């Protein structure tokens, strides 16, 4: 049996069409206190598809996403968005953080939060016009939160808050959407609302990447999966990649065999 590894260690020769991928990562290593949480990961996200980043707890899923966004520094490796540097492509990507550690008592209404998504468009001095407001309201409508526009954000339930943050990303009209565990701790109605919005985005040709923890819903929600456990375990379409073998490699003993059978049968 020849030695083969899933990851290719920052050395993947990048073909011309791949460099224009919505998100491509090469040899990425990210560390907390001198211990790598993500080691030498290559990732190429295909355009117009929904990709789930999955892996066990502490596997570096959120870390990978945050490093792609430049929120945390990388030790080595390169990240390109649509073939450009992160800075050049900022305007084309939208991020929905894990239910944020924000101050819920902050004096901001739902509509104000959504308007924050327009910060790049508004710059420092441009006025918020009725057209901006209408766009923000339309986005709230898409996540079923239009009636809450005037509420202070702390008065919403967890699921409602999550939908507002999704609306803030929608109003950016980005080409690449990165979401960090959007379904964690939300009610069923919110999960349904979010997934239908994400599917709409895909229908418009946009690319959606989701850090996801619920293996049971992967085949139903996503086209592609990216399996990570510090290193890349596998990437590809759900049909070929979301297999019991790959899950076993990623999760080791932390996933019962019965669970494996049920999920990827």
């Amino acid at each position, binding site marked *: 049996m020849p*030695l083969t*590894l899933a990851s290719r260690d*920052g*050395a993947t020769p990048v073909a011309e069409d791949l460099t224009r991928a919505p998100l491509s990562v090469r*040899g990425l*290593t990210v*560390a907390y206190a001198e211990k790598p949480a993500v080691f030498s990961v290559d990732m190429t996200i295909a355009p117009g598809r929904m990709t789930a980043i999955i892996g066990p707890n502490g596997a570096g899923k959120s870390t990978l996403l945050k490093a792609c966004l430049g929120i945390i520094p990388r030790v*080595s490796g390169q990240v390109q968005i649509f073939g450009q540097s992160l800075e050049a492509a900022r305007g084309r990507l939208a991020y929905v953080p894990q239910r944020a550690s924000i101050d819920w008592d902050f004096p901001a209404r739902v509509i104000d939060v959504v308007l924050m998504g327009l910060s790049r468009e508004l710059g420092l001095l441009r006025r918020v016009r009725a057209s901006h407001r209408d766009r923000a309201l339309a986005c709230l409508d898409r996540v079923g939160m239009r009636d809450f526009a005037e509420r202070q954000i702390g008065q919403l339930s967890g699921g409602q808050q999550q939908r507002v943050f999704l609306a803030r990303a929608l109003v950016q009209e980005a080409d690449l959407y990165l979401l960090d565990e959007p379904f964690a701790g939300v009610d069923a109605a919110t999960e349904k609302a979010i997934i239908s919005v994400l599917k709409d985005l895909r229908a418009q040709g946009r690319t959606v990447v989701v850090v996801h923890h619920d293996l049971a819903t992967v085949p139903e929600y996503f086209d592609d999966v990216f399996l990570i*456990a510090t290193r890349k375990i596998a990437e590809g379409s759900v049909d070929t990649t979301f297999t019991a073998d790959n899950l076993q490699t990623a999760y080791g003993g932390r996933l019962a065999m019965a669970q494996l059978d049920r999920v990827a049968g």
Partner: protein
Amino acid sequence: MLWHALSLQLGYNATLVAIGATLLGLSCGAAGTFLFLRKRALVSDAISHATLPGVAIAFLVMVALGGDGRWLPGLLIGSALSAWAGLWVLNRFVARTRLSEDAAIGAVLSVFFGFGVVLLTVIQSLGTGRQAGLEGFLLGSTAGMLYQDALIIAGGGVLTLLALLLIRRPMLAVSFDPDYAAARGVPVARVDMAMMVLVMCVTVVGLKIVGLILIVALLIIPSVTARFWSEQADRVVLLAAAAGGLSGYVGAAISASAPNLPTGPIIVLVSFALFVLSLLLAPGRGVLASVLGQMAFRREVHLRQGLLALAQNQPVYEPLTRRLLRRAGLTRADGVATEAGQAQAAKALRDEARWQIARADPAHDSIAVLYDGLRAIETVLTPDQIAEIDRRIGAPQAVTP
């Protein structure tokens, strides 16, 4: 001259001041550490500024009663009462309104201080001729320090240290995890209050030497200095006391060794110098150590990634990786692996493959979480276990250059 000062040979007053400043530094450093660990360091700034109206009112009262307005014990009692009032208002604000503590501190600090300044101005305009010296409480003034003054400062400092010693356990418990402390029956609110009262005591005691504006520096700087050197709370307290005492002693000596050097500010500058030294040089938490550690870590990551790329016959893209491989003698100038490079690359790839097997095996579940791309597999598995894994992988592979 400085030597004379350090060996307490500059005369009576300088010696009194040096001893007082040392004791004050000791107790400030120790008391301040608990505040710092409780993450309420700035409360001390509110407390110290709130002493000013009390000093002024005590002066007015003593003059009105026909006494000497500058009698130190009277002034200190006045300052303690008004600091207490400031603390009470602060706690009310935080408990009863949605104001956060930092905003409440700002409000209490400025209002009390402003009121105190107004009272000082009034006293000045009274023109009784006896008011001279109250401004000394702002930045400290040690020129006319009396034996009794020194005794009060020394006594207050020692009493505070004893009290700290007595209740250090509950204070640390509350600082670390107030909920757990409460569950164990520690009266959290009362411990917090005791902590603040102790800080109030050292503040009041320090008014004469360091002054109310700068006392906060002596409470906070020694504790952050000490934090660089230890990961154990009680050692941090001791080190902070030592740093504070040393600052007090050296600062007082320096200020005595030349005319017109203000004692309080010099003490603060000395303690800041200790802080800067610690910030740069402390092992582990210091800037130098962490920069060097980061650089070594970065090298390790790049080398490992480079070796894995070599082993899989892939070009290395990152310039830093290429440079490190070449410098370590693992590749030639044209990027081709040397003999040593081939050997190490083969080992790296083999280890990686071993890890892949080990991590997928439920039997090795407990070690799977230890994988981080760098850790050598020999540190988590026995030779027997590795040999077993090797049997599953197959014979070693040669790496072609």
